[in-house]
């Protein structure tokens, strides 16, 4: 056991009492229902999560934080994105299952831009954890670069006809509702809420690195939805998509930092417990120095995940930048940190029965989806160019 408690294991440094209780409740719930053994047992589960579990999470507030009070949602602190990041951090610390990211992104989009009908018929089910919704955004090669959308939505007789493929779609095979980002004939974007049961929509499960998160390819073959399926004003769809991406990234970053935090804590305990050549591993200078590096990377990870959440909360002009900064940084140092934790464990660290890979999977997933490290670096340069132009 470590002589000092690992510090800084809170996502944000200062929490309101309500937030503290919120985090505590989620932590306790996850401790009870998502032990590493539980997670290992779900490896072959086609859904990767249990609907009852998801409803209980929803009762704890997991699905309502980005939904306005009028729409049946509500925050803990008045700052829903920040609250959301706190849950995501705990989910990361437990490598917990569930369609947390896609459901919240869709809930936010519907609360912000959904029609009254969508808010009345779909949103309550999402908030209650009864309905699983997901975002169909990224596409297979050759349209797999960040932000590339080629799936076509053709307007015909007051309906939209969708043709194309989306992948990877998180919880694609489990979702009841799809928020589909599509390209219109005039080259703009439109977002449509498409029930999974729509004719012409088929779902093919994919493989993935995470033990419980599932992905699928969703295919649209002349799938037709009424114009009332549109979410938000298409003129603002590009901005809506950017907002959804930022929310997805806030969740990803917090989850990654949570998983890193847990990996580091497990490793510190191991280093004090394990003796080699009559000395605790924790006494070897080379390992000590790597722990110091990891602690620094972890604190910086906390910092950028927190900053990103605050900027996205405030829809600040730097929100896009902070999201990409977070992805560029954590996408690289997250996997490095957990890999080094594994290295310090030796052989046991690469076994399936050890817990570390649960967190590694979560972190590696976060380093790849919603933009790779390379893509977000290049996006930053594009943002900087734009900023430079604004200066002039």
């Amino acid at each position, binding site marked *: *056991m470590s002589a000092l408690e690992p510090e800084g294991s809170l996502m944000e440094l200062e929490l309101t009492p309500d937030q503290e209780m919120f985090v505590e409740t989620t932590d306790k719930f996850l401790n009870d229902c998502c032990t590493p053994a539980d997670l290992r047992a779900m490896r072959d589960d086609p859904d990767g999560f249990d609907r009852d579990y998801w409803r209980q999470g929803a009762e704890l507030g997991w699905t309502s934080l980005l939904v306005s009070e009028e729409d049946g949602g509500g925050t803990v602190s008045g700052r829903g994105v920040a609250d959301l990041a706190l849950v995501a951090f705990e989910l990361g610390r437990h490598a917990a299952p569930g369609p947390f990211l896609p459901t919240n992104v869709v809930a936010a989009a519907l609360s912000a831009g959904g029609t009254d009908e969508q808010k009345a018929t779909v949103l309550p089910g999402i908030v209650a954890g009864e309905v699983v919704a997901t975002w169909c955004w*990224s596409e*297979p*090669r*050759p349209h*797999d670069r960040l932000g590339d959308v080629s799936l076509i939505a053709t307007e015909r007789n007051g309906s939209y006809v969708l043709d194309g493929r989306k*992948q*990877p779609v998180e919880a694609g095979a489990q979702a009841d509702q799809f928020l589909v980002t599509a390209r219109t004939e005039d080259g703009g974007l439109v977002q449509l809420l498409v029930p999974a049961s729509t004719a012409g929509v088929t779902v*093919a499960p*994919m*493989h*993935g*690195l995470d033990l419980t998160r599932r*992905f699928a*390819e969703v295919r649209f073959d002349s799938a037709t939805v009424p114009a009332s399926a549109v979410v938000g004003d298409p003129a603002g769809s590009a901005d809506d998509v950017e907002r959804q991406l930022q929310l997805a990234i806030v969740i990803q970053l917090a989850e990654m930092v949570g998983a890193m935090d847990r990996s580091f804590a497990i490793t510190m305990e191991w280093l*004090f*417990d*394990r*003796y*080699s*050549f*009559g*000395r*605790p*591993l924790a006494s*070897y200078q*080379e*390992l000590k120095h790597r722990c110091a590096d990891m602690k620094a990377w972890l604190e910086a990870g906390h910092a950028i995940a927190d900053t990103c959440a605050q900027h996205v909360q405030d829809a600040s002009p730097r929100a896009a930048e902070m999201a990409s900064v977070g992805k560029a940084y954590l996408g690289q140092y997250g*996997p490095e940190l957990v*890999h080094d934790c*594994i*290295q310090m464990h*030796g*052989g*046991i*660290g*690469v*076994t*399936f*029965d*050890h817990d570390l*890979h649960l967190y*590694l*999977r979560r972190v*590696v*997933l976060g*380093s*790849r*989806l919603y933009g*790779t*490290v*390379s893509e977000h670096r290049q996006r930053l340069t594009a943002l900087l160019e734009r900023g430079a132009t604004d200066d002039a």
Partner: protein
Amino acid sequence: MPDPTADVEDLDSFRARLRSWLADNMPRRDPDQPSPLARGLLTDEEELADVARARDLQRRLFEGGFAGICFPREYGGQGLTPAHQQVFNEEIVGYEYPARIQVPTFQPCATVLLDFGTHEQKLAHIPAILKGEEIWMQFLSEPTGGSDVAGAQTTAIRDGDEWVLNGSKIWTTGAWWSDWALCLARTNWNVPKHRGLTVFMVKIHQPGIEVQRIEMLNGSKEFCQEFLTDVRIPDSDRIGEVDDGWTVGTRWMFYEKSFPISFFTTRPAGSGDPMAQSAVGGSLVRQAAAMGRLGDPVTRELIGEAHALSVVQGEGNRRIGRAIATGKMSDQGAGLSKVLGGTLGIRLANINFDLAGASAAAWSDDDASLGARGVAFLTRQAGQIGGGTVEMARNVVSERLLGMPRERTLDRDVPFRDVPRGPSSR
């Protein structure tokens, strides 16, 4: 080692004879069909079939007079020189060969037997090994031991002409289909750790030994853990002197680390040589082309970097091997290869993962090869741990090769039973 003054077949005649024999007797390797071993995860049935195939290939070599090129003739070998083994390595390219029994059967197990076994012990096992009848494993690491193999706690207690073994060994590759093992056991707890060890030959499948398979995080079950309960071994299966096992162990460790420069094993000139290195870059070029990324300068730069690092790793290992073989560097330099991989190997693994893009995290059946890059990335550290961690190699290189002061150990001059073992072990 063969007697250098003996009258040995010259290399050209050996090569000609070998080439014609191979063409007539050994199955050609299908270049588009990777060996089962290289293909990754196998079912148990596939694995057993592959092991049987390896035994059969080894038997063919033995019958053809090409098994154990550098092993003495009196134990079934060919009594030839490292240069002959090199010729063999060159000529075997393009043919199947018993890849999976090179390590640890031939090296370190058989080479340890050659160095420390009695004449009877060698007669009993070396020919059987060369015929493919015995596959050997190492009962070396222990679950509580980590990098400190000399801290073995598996205990052997003498009982007349027998020894009774109790304890647990771990990280043996494929113990479930292997036959024999070299086992390092503690025979004296009242002396410092290096002075109370003894080495035994142990038949793996016998009452008292339970072999349990370990699942790795990528699903592989190649490694096993063994639980030894009152296993009885005749004293005639002891290797070396009682309590002098570390003399054997030191050599054993050296052999274990020097596979890349060994001449008791077969490594087709394809592995670690220029052609194979080209293959690294070439396969990344093909992958990028298939992904439609070959025009992307970022991709092109990463491919070039990966290729450079893999060539440098190969050339570095070749130099290190040659320096040790020619006596310009001490045996301890063998750890340099591991250390080099500690930097270059990690970077290579990262590039391989990065080039596979998002498909390495979530992939359709069509992209299975990209998904495999993701799974490989999850096990990135395995190569930095297996066969001795890179940290231990850095210790060895700095202390034994560069002569820097040794790390302080608290287990050197105290009876082994008094060595501090940490909170959980108490």
